[in-house]
């Protein structure tokens, strides 16, 4: 990205002096390399060549603002973070330069400058210890664990247990259940639609002519009224399903007349 920027610069601004270009390059080539404005400030602060504790925040603010100006002049797009920091540093600069406003209750310019210095010092310190940490002997690089760890063999024994009370409660539960079985549905005399459909799918191929659907009732279901009712309902529902599938046609000459069914013509089954 940086390279592109500089190519662009060359085209747009015409020949710039070598010195200008180098100066711009020195900082700006690294815009992508900076991890945010604090990182950039830390880098800038190094140019002061003093202990971070003695850093001139005012001077640092000037350096930063100059950097941003230059970036603008070079029509570089800086991330919002950098501009927010620039605005704040401009504010800080004015605070540091102007006599304090007695009406202003906020922190003084010196307080703000001190905190910024603290942040920079802390960031520098964390970088330093991070480097020291990584320079330590590391496992798998400088020292090693056992190459053939022997797994601990786990011998797990499961013991099941129950009390006499569990046993009696269990038994009581079963017996209680036996005495109260009102919720059990007796499903002996129910012919389901699934059953009917399965049956009729097998038979429909032979129904070239109109046939009363009652002739499709399964064997043994025609006489007992309860069974007959269930089977008839299921067979009718299954017939409707077949019609819906386009495999059969239904007709009834008048109300309560027998319902007739035939295979739909022209359809292979």
């Amino acid at each position: 990205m940086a390279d592109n920027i500089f190519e662009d610069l060359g085209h747009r601004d015409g020949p710039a002096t070598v010195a200008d270009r180098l100066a711009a390059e020195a900082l700006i080539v690294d815009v992508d390399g900076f991890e945010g404005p604090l990182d950039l400030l830390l880098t800038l602060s190094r140019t002061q060549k003093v202990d971070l504790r003695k850093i001139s925040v005012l001077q640092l603010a000037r350096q930063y603002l100059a950097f941003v100006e230059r970036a603008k002049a070079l029509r570089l797009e800086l991330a919002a973070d950098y501009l927010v920091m620039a605005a704040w540093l401009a504010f800080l600069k004015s605070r540091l330069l102007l006599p304090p406003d007695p009406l202003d209750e906020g922190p003084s310019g010196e307080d703000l400058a001190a905190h910024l210095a603290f942040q920079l010092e802390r960031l520098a310190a964390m970088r330093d210890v991070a480097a020291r940490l990584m320079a330590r002997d590391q496992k798998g690089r400088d020292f090693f664990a056992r190459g053939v760890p022997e797994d601990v063999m786990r011998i797990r024994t499961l013991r099941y247990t129950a009390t006499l009370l569990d046993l009696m409660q269990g038994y009581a539960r079963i017996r209680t259940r036996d005495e109260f079985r009102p919720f059990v549905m007796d499903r002996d005399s129910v012919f389901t639609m699934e059953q009917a459909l399965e049956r009729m799918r097998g038979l429909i191929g032979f129904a070239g002519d109109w046939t009363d659907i009652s002739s499709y009732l399964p064997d043994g279901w025609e006489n007992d009224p309860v069974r007959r009712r269930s089977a008839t309902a299921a067979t009718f529902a299954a017939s409707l399903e077949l019609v819906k599938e386009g495999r059969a046609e239904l007709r009834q000459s008048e109300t309560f007349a027998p319902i007739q069914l035939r295979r739909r013509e022209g359809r292979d089954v």
Partner: protein
Amino acid sequence: MSEPDDIPEAEEQSLFEAPPMGEQERMVEAILFATAEPVTVRELEARMPHGCDAAEALVYLRKRYAGRGVHLVKVGDAWAMRTAPDLGFLMQKETVETRKLSRAAIETLAIIAYHQPVTRAEIEEIRGVSVSRGTVDQLLEMEWIRFGRRKMTPGRPVTFVVTEAFLDHFGLESARDLPGLKELRAAGLLDNRPSPAAMPQLGEGEEPEDEANEGQSELFED
């Protein structure tokens, strides 16, 4: 170490350079510790600084580890460190977990205790659900039930009865000592009203998972 007298110049120089034997021993120790495979003398020397005598270092190291918790052992041509055989027991961890018997198992056991000798079909009839093989196997394994005589009915099905160990565990002298239905009722264990929680499981099949039961069974316990 015990090279012939007419050592070539290179050898002589490398002998000169080799670290002291104590250091070599440390090196062999570290390599054998960290390496997943047994290591041959040749490999050891290939990894150690020039001029080292791994074989000699191994002799010292072996002595050092004699009688320790870890031994230096020869595996084919190679060397490795191994746990002393008498300490093998430390590499095992025995744990005993006590778990409550599943509801299915308790009910099956109760039916066997109250109705023995009883066939599987009879148990299923009484419980109203099928009895999984796992449940019966578990009770057999615990030695709380055993096979009784075959029933003299068609198919001659096997029956189950409870064992001495069962009586022992539950502190019963005989299965006849189990409280009867009346006593259960008197003790309030046989509620006349079906507990609402007891209803939904009527059509339920066997629950093989103990864990699944664990939470559920809480609901049923008074």
